[in-house]
């Protein structure tokens, strides 16, 4: 199964990359507000039960894919 995970830094934590990109876009003449840059992770996971797969991926997230101190994550199966 194909699973997509969005790993996003918590909103209260500063995001220098987003700030810099926002500034660059404004320099190019685009009017933008806040910009955030986060991760989208796509995985192929074996299994046919979506709930099972989701639980497995949640486990991966808390162990490796996301940083529990700084990130939130969201899992989409299929």
């Amino acid at each position: 199964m194909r699973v997509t995970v969005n790993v996003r830094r918590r909103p209260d934590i500063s995001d220098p990359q987003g700030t810099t990109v926002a500034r660059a876009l404004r320099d190019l003449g685009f009017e933008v507000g806040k910009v955030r840059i986060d991760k989208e992770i796509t995985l192929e996971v074996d299994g046919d039960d979506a709930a099972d797969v989701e639980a497995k991926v949640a486990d991966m997230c808390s162990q490796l894919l996301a940083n529990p101190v700084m990130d939130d994550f969201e899992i989409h199966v299929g």
Partner: protein
Amino acid sequence: MSDVDLAPEEVPVHQALGMTDEEFASVQDILGRDPEPAELAMYSVMWSEHCSYKSSRAHLGRFPSDAPWVVVGPGENAGVVDLGDGWYAALRIESHNHPSFVEPYQGAATGVGGILRDIFTMGARPVALWDQIRFGPLDDAMNRYLFNGVVSGIAGYGNAVGVPTIGGEVAFEECYAGNPLVNVMCLGIMKAEDLVYGTAGTPGTIAVLLGNATGRDGIGGASVLASASFDEGSSEKRPSVQVGDPFEEKKLIEACLELYRRSLVVGVQDLGAAGLSCAASEPAARAGVGMDLDLDAVHVREGDMTPAELLMSESQERMMAFVDEAKVDEVLAVASKWEIDAAVVGTVKAGSDLIVRHEGAVVATIPAASLTEDAPKLHRPYGEPAWQQDLWTNTLPLLQVPNLKDALLKLLDDPSLADPRWAYEQYDHMLFTNTVVEPGHDASMIRVKGTDKGLSVSTDGNGRHCYLDPRRGGARLVYESALNVAMTGARPMAVVDNLNFGNPEKTGVMWQFVETLEGISQACEALDVPVIGGNVSFYNETDGVDIFPTPVVGMLGMADPMPTDPPRLDQVSDGDHLLMFGPRGSRNLAGSAFEKVMHGHIGGRPDEPDPYLAKAIIELAAQLACSGKVPAMHDIAEGGVALTVAEMCIASEVGATINFSTWIGLFAENPNRFVAAVPAEHVESVLAMAEELDVPTSELGRFGGDVISLQNGSHESTEIPLAEATVTYRTAIPRRMS
């Protein structure tokens, strides 16, 4: 106090902020009333252990800190020494232990950012960084994660900000498993006229806040993180993690250096722990003035921040500049040129009060100096722990001769002793094209362009020795680091120290602290080297177990002129004589790597260093390094003679024969000794130089061949193939990390 949401309702606010009832009472005393929320927030961060040094201040005065070449001693953001010919160097060391445990990458990265600001606050350009990092053993996944994260964080920040990391230390020991140590040191160079102080100047001076917008980063970090121990509940106390932005810092460095060059500032202060509270009060206190601070002018990243939050925020990459009113526009123009934000946030006033305004109202009125000068100064009780004597008598009964090949290979495979290049090859250590002796040798050396001077730095710590005897251990670190810089031809010049200790509320820990300080002080006095700055990190304990007392000494040395071809570990040639300088016949394995690695044992009492010998040996090393007669030298430290020679062999791809009389002598770690590879034609004159300084010498053997051969008289010999030793040494860390 409703506006700092740190604690459950039941706990009094001052306690939630890490303040004792007595401290709260003295705040009431100072103000003659109850503090307002913003005021209490300021006192809580400024009086925290981390900012006020309340447990250590009573003792730090013991350090010798005077010498004719000291320009700025302890107390400012960094120590400054005079290099001669109009050049100054600034040096400072700092710990980021607790933040690195919470988030290793960002914790280490922001540690680097902070130490850089301490240096360019003084007017100096940061030119080199060192990192001293300690973790639990690498067979545990958590420790690997922390090690990897910390190294990436130092690399990620240091490389991007554009300051080379040219040395450091890596060590692994069980006691750091729940409490890694991450210390970073920075050296800066400046022309004498660029020196700036952290002063607010005279009434009328304008305070300009430069750099990052302020957010809710690390609110209460200084008090909650660095001044308390880790235990089960600590994850809930985690304040929001601070994220380092090396790009912003790089711009800030260049902008500040331009401000100094153009003499546009009266003083500057970095915003580190305690953020604005500190940056407003310390310079005002130093200058004996008051200050009007307008929080509405502070540029912010998030809306709705309370005054307390604004005052406590530890947002990174910010500086406060104090500017004559007439020059404010020029300062703002420099900021805008370097594309950093700047805001006029305050005015220096006559008097002594720090007045803080927010949304038109005065939210704090306190004597600026009370935040620093009236901070509690504790005289914590201390005493030798009951177990200390037992430790001294707990020597290992060593009856049998070990398998020497096995022993040497095990030492080479120990991550604390093995090749640390896995770490330092992730660091840019060549930027600025000054690195004459790169990491991988005893001390790293940089040249100072435009002069003949070379600056050499070594950083050393040894938790095991200091645990067994904090006074001797502390002294030995000073001698070791001095000998290390002498290996490049430099004379020791100044020391900074980072004192990493457990919980100071325990009398045994306080005793370790006081003893260590005494040891470091005595050694510095013996060498006539001043302590020009340092840092104290207490509460390094987890679940009630303290780390080994782990002072780290950073030694700055100078060679003027710098030797044209300083000795290097990789310059040994086939046929060179292997000479040892310093006393023979060491028999003491207390605290040695051999005992730890081979027997898992830590006990006994390390030898007391001999100050006269230390002085002579350091002088001899510096003379030899400058003589051009000694292509390679290496001090004997952890792992003893055997490991020391093996490291030279591996670096130079040449074998060696070492003659020994007792095998213990191969692994003992007695101080004040070094070995050298000396070509036959120079042996005589080198020995004469040693004799001149009364340093005992012995010929241990020869370099050559493709084995390391350990020979006891003519009958017994153990051969370790160089190739095997090399692979073991080089892969010990990468093998465990992959």
